[in-house]
């Protein structure tokens, strides 16, 4: 008789040690994307893979307790809104759409801020979309 996956002690312990580091690495990729390889897309996928690993090992019910599925649906739209919002703010502060130069008094700082916020939006949307799709698949399999 095969045991269900969440009863394997080794998998549980190792994943509990690993998952925080996966999240940390995702955040590093997210916010360090200006300086090294990576950015919103990659960070979003890595963050999502951390959540997916948790779901695979602890099951869908535990995962729904920790990460409410509704949350990701909101975040998915929120990410694109942040991206578009940065564009609109640039528009309102005298520049063109998505022209980060006008976000702050200094053009280079404006670019830094704009890229950071835009990447945050990308990361949020990618994470939420990936996790939502994965949850939808698993939910369907269970029903």
């Amino acid at each position, binding site marked *: 008789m095969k045991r269900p996956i969440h009863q394997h002690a080794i998998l549980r312990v190792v994943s509990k040690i690993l998952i925080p580091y996966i999240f940390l690495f995702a955040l590093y990729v997210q916010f360090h994307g200006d300086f090294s390889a990576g950015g919103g897309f990659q960070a979003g996928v890595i963050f999502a893979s951390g959540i997916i690993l948790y779901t695979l090992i602890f099951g869908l019910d535990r995962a729904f307790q920790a990460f409410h599925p509704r949350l990701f649906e909101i975040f998915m739209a929120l990410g694109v809104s942040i991206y578009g919002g940065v*564009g609109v703010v640039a528009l309102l502060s005298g520049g063109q759409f998505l022209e980060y130069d006008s976000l702050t008094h200094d053009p280079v700082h404006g670019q830094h801020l704009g890229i950071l916020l835009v990447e945050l939006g990308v990361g949020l949307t990618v994470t939420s979309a990936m996790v939502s799709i994965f949850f939808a*698949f698993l939910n369907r399999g269970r029903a």
Partner: protein
Amino acid sequence: MTLLLAVALAIIVLRDLFAAAMLSGIFSLTSAGLFVVMDAVDVAFTEAAVGAGISTVLMLGALLLTVSREKHGTSRLQLLPLVVVLLTGTALIYGTLDMPRYGDPEAPIHSHVASSYLERTPNEIGIPNVVTAVLASYRGYDTLGETTVVLIAGTGVLLLLKHPRGNKQEEES
């Protein structure tokens, strides 16, 4: 390259879909390695994370909903698909003959806008990673479009799969 070819052949031959899903992950990881060798770390990063990570998991999720062994199709040789595949392959390979040699400084990608991005990024954006600068700033519109595509894909899957079968329709009808 040889490894990629071997993995691709194995995917075709294998009838066990679980192993095929795993092999497609290995395929992605190998191509990510290839991208690293060609100094495209950002692309390699994405390939490793999306191709080897997420799509393998989604493939396994899809396997959960269906059977994990491929049915034996007709053993008769399908001539038309074979001809189409061979023709397309030949055309693609013929197309690569005209491409500039790898690392050729005269290649169109180096003589067009890329050099101006490289020159302008330190002064205008002030960040070391030019790929991020191009993605998020110079090509901000494109990235906004890509993000919207991700949102639409997510919404589409949710609309199709979220409610258990028949649950919603019964209420309406």
